[in-house]
């Protein structure tokens, strides 16, 4: 019997997935003060792209991305493309693992080897996936609450310590639309919203075919608003320049919280948010890859779990020598490779699906 995952759980896993690392890193800062606007724009694009995936899902509600790829492209093209997707997901998981562990190492764990941090993380992810995708989504529900609570708490504390100066956001669009557009084109249309491609692997578990994609779209929108809000908050607390130079701007922002010497340095909350976000991000990519593998090769889901975890771990370790190189490589991938998988192939699939559907529709009805 197939497992059906409820809409609320899908909403929460999408939210956590989108917030993931994006919440703590600086996002769209090519747009300077208007980063928050570029995030909003990116969100809209993300939703539009996602509706494309949703169309594919509505056409084949029981199939995953790799499933309908093979159906539409045929066996000989479909299988290699599916394989490429699986590799993409494993690679994305590995990159996020590296992201997360490096950020943790920068933020608190200065002396702990990256390998240990990553191992602990990937083992936890593997354990949760061992329990199943349903458990993953359910767990995300709990941690969505925790992340939102931390967010509300920190925002309140920032307000109380009087660190928010909204005038630092002004003037809006000082240099016109161009920087925003540049930021969107460079980053925001792909990160984090383009990564929704991994959800095409999970969507067959949706409990409600009609409403499901809309719920996910709503989650993308919500996460976009939250990200935009966070970025605006960052800038209004520290100013655009400091934010743009901080790899984890949320940390210094939260460290500005100081309430009568009692509540201070609560930036460990940011670390918690970071851990939670990275965890679910890796988990979703990992799950997408696992579902793809088990579907493509007909292997039991669990058998490939630990080998894949090892692959992810070593991808993340051998990815780059340092963080800057890693980011550089990420930028290149973001430009050249990901759009093929996120935009191009799905677009081709959509066209093919539309043709097929159009042709078969008159016959059936």
């Amino acid at each position, binding site marked *: 019997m197939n497992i059906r995952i409820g809409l609320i759980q899908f909403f929460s896993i999408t939210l956590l997935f989108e917030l993931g690392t994006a919440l703590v890193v600086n996002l769209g800062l090519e747009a300077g003060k208007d980063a928050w606007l570029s995030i909003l724009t990116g969100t809209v694009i993300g939703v539009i792209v996602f509706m494309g995936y949703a169309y594919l899902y509505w056409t084949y509600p029981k199939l995953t991305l790799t499933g309908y790829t093979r159906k539409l492209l045929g066996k000989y093209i479909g299988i290699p493309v599916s394989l490429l997707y699986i590799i993409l997901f494993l690679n994305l998981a590995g990159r996020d693992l590296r992201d997360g562990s490096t950020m943790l190492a920068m933020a608190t764990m*200065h002396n702990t080897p990256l390998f240990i941090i990553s191992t602990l993380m990937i*083992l936890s992810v593997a354990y949760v996936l*061992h329990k199943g995708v349903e458990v993953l989504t359910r767990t995300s529900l709990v941690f969505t609450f925790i992340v939102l609570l931390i967010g509300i708490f920190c925002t309140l504390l920032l307000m109380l310590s009087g660190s928010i100066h909204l005038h630092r956001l*002004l*003037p809006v669009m*000082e240099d016109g639309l161009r920087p925003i557009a540049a930021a969107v084109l460079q980053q925001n249309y792909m990160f984090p919203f383009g990564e929704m491609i991994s959800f095409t692997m999970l969507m067959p578990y949706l409990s409600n075919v009609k409403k499901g994609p809309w719920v996910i779209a709503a989650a993308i929108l919500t996460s976009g608003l939250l990200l935009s809000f966070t970025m605006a908050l960052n800038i209004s607390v*520290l100013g655009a320049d400091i934010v743009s130079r901080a790899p984890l701007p949320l*940390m210094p922002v939260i*460290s*500005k919280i100081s309430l009568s010497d009692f509540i201070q340095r609560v930036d460990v909350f940011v670390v918690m948010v970071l851990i939670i976000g990275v965890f679910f991000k890796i988990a979703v990519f990992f799950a997408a890859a696992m579902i793809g593998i088990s579907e493509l090769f007909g292997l039991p889901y669990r058998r490939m779990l630990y080998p894949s975890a090892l692959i992810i771990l070593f991808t993340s370790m051998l990815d780059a020598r340092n963080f800057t190189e890693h980011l550089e490589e990420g930028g290149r991938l973001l430009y050249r490779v990901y759009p093929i998988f996120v935009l191009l192939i799905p677009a081709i699939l959509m066209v093919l699906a539309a043709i097929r559907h159009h042709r078969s529709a008159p016959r059936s009805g």
Partner: protein
Amino acid sequence: MKTRAKAAFSVLLVCLQLMFFLSLTGCWDSVELNRRAIVSGVAIDRGPNEEQKYVISFQIIVADEISGENSRGVSPVTLYTGRGRTMFEALANASRQTARFLSLGHVRVLVISEAFAREGIKGIMDVLERESDMRLTTLFFISKGQPAIDCMSTLTVFGKIPSNDLVEKLETTSKQFGYSYKMEVDDVIRGIQTIGGGPLINGVYVSGARSKADTKKNLETIEPQAIIRIKGLAVFKDDKLKGWLEGEAAAGAALIRNKIKHLPVIIKMKDGSYVSCNVYQSQVHIKAELTDPEHPVFSVRITQQAAIKESSNDLELTDPQVLKDISVKIAEVTHQQLETAIVSTQKLKSDVLGFGEVLERSHPRGWKKIRDRWSRIYATSRIEIATEAVIRHTDMRTDSFQVNKPE
């Protein structure tokens, strides 16, 4: 049964893996509290040469002396000094002298000597920002005309840790009777980045017999031999100290930056007597007009609420007209303060008061044309001041009591 055994086995395997890794991992980042030397304040002085450019003194808390049962009756803080070409080298040198890990997580105060500030503080700021242990809420001071180390080595009466005493002094004065306000690391960084301006930083100095300040003798007399005082605002241009604002000018600057909560205002009446008021709330509005890009015109409007705290003369405070007169005089005093502040900063050619930001926000296009020349333009730009004051009440009495009051 078989699957259950299999599941048990896999769980066991995971546990084994975990244990394996846990046993391999030491606790790299774990430092026991009694291996830490908690730094409460840092003083940075300019060394004599480039080899020893940075002379950093760390005020370290001796917890045993403060709250331990087995205190030896020695000083509650201790000072370690390191020298080096860079901040980090100096830090490392100081760290080598201590038996423990220098922990910067609780640095409350950072004092930079005036000599260094005149030379430029950019080199100092980077490590403060980069180091993840440092907190952005650390308060900044410029030691006025003295080595910064003096401020770190003066024992204080209230609170055993001198740095905390300084923090508390600043907090108290910023809430009452003072023009000093909190200057934190990120404020300073943003200040340095202000085009044509710089940060305003509180000045601090040790008054009295500095030679005795670092021993317990300082506290043995009723009147302490040496006291740390917060005085004056250091005006920076970019990252270099240009001059000081004091008295009226400092108060005016704080007023324009809208940082003042309570400010005493003393006004002289016609008959030569004085009336003291306390200004509770000030609201500042700055507007910029840019008809001619080379000569922007600013108008500063300030509205204040005050209460009469002292009036030992025979003024009839029940008469609204009298209160009105007084409030006009308060407005005049404020006007004077603002004007002094603006004039002195214009003289120093540093827009520490943030007029440029106002211009940027209201006229972004015009601002772009003049931003490179802003400090020069600021020095000559016209600033109109409109002040207004309202006396809310006269506190617990109306008229003052009189000697042999005539019937």
